[in-house]
């Protein structure tokens, strides 16, 4: 189980990386944390002609506060997301979800940008991006553009990234006061890919009703899925079990054909999505209430 041959480049700047990506052509791939790519290389399921390693680009690894929210460099490691005090303070959902990515030895390498660009429908962080209404900066040798998370994920392992583009930054808006969030997933074993996962954000109004809910799921559709119908169901309701049940039913209705594999059928994943939705919303609401008191 050894990789096929490839050329290797370790640029120090984003510009250099973008140039290399142009030069090396369609068969070149970017290497971020490598925790999904290396297994594919070892198994020879991926055979890039060249790897452009982003790990030496210091400018990609940062976490900055901005407008009550956050801007994160794409090379931010999951282990950093999990522990960073600024992330914990401003977007605890991201920290909570990052903990579910594999195991610590994986998270020391795996990166936020890598996970988003890889766009595995089972991955946690893409769903979190939908729940947090994120936007991504995509940079190429000719310029850069910003794409909303909702427009980024196109299919299993497919994104809005064009060849020559590098996902460099993640922008997360801040949450209003009286907000709470929760990430929950169910996997066969700790650290395995989820059979279903739910990222929930609840923002409460002054009167204690739900001003806004954001809900996104992983591993139940070809892409991470924002549960818009369920979000609509929740708006203006009292945060109680009936609301969570109604949202769960809306989620289950919304899931057309969840993926199926030997670890879980489509039907089971759909069922889990409902259960986890209920539990995640209840937890998020509890946290929203606590944040206020």
């Amino acid at each position, binding site marked *: *189980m050894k990789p096929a041959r490839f050329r290797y480049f370790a640029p120090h700047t984003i510009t250099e990386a973008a140039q290399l990506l142009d030069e090396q052509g369609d068969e070149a791939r970017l290497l971020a944390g490598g925790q999904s790519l290396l297994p594919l290389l070892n198994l020879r399921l991926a055979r890039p002609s060249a790897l452009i390693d982003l*790990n030496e680009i210091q400018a990609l690894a940062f976490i900055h506060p901005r407008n009550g929210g956050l801007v994160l460099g794409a090379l931010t490691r999951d282990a950093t997301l999990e522990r960073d005090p600024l992330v914990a303070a401003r977007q605890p959902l991201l920290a909570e979800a990052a903990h579910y990515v594999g195991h610590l030895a994986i998270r020391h390498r795996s990166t936020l940008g890598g996970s988003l660009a890889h766009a595995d429908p089972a991955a946690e962080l893409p769903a979190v991006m939908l729940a947090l209404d994120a936007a991504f900066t995509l940079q190429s040798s000719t310029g850069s553009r910003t794409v909303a998370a909702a427009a980024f994920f196109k299919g299993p392992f497919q994104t809005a990234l064009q060849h020559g583009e590098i996902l460099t930054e993640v922008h997360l808006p801040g949450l209003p006061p009286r907000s709470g969030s929760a990430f929950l997933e169910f996997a066969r074993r700790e650290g395995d890919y989820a059979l279903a996962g739910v990222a929930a954000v609840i923002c409460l109004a002054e009167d204690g009703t739900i001003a806004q809910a954001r809900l996104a799921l992983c591993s139940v559709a070809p892409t991470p899925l924002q549960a818009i119908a369920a979000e609509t169901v929740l708006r203006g309701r009292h945060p109680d079990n009936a609301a969570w049940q109604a949202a769960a039913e809306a989620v289950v209705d919304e899931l057309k054909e969840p993926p199926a594999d030997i670890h879980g059928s489509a039907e089971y994943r759909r069922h889990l999505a409902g259960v986890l939705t209920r539990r995640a919303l209840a937890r998020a609401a509890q946290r929203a209430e606590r944040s206020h008191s």
Partner: protein
Amino acid sequence: MMEDDFIPVRVSVNGVPHRLFVEPRRTLLDMLREDLELTGTNAGCEHGSCGACTVLLDGQSVRACLLLAVQANGHEVMTVEGLALHGRMHPLQEAFWEKQGLQCGFCTPGMLMTAYELLQQNPDPGEEEIRSALSGNLCRCTGYQHIVEAIRLAAQRLREEAEAATPSGTTA
């Protein structure tokens, strides 16, 4: 194979500096085992699922099968061979021995490195924390319990050592 397929790597392993040339496709695991003949780190799955090849890169646990050797350039690697000092086992190794936290020994180097990092971060982990920290390291022999017990024992001894090393009179 042409010489220019190879890339120079400078890496410190267990405090010993090495300079070598490797193919880009060589994993850190194969570099350690084949080029540096540090065969204590074992290849269990080579796809990042078993944890047998866990080593520390700049003090952080990583899976050596999921890193390219060239990516270790300029970094410090610590392997199981670096745990014992002057032929004396590290307290973790001693505790694994006492509690029989191993049977076939194949997963053991990865377990030790994972446990080493855990105790660096958390000198007094509870059973649940230990099990969670180990959940990415598969062992097919022990059922894990003796490993958990060994880590608790080592933690206790390391805490005692640290306390003994603290100058007296610092606490009122």
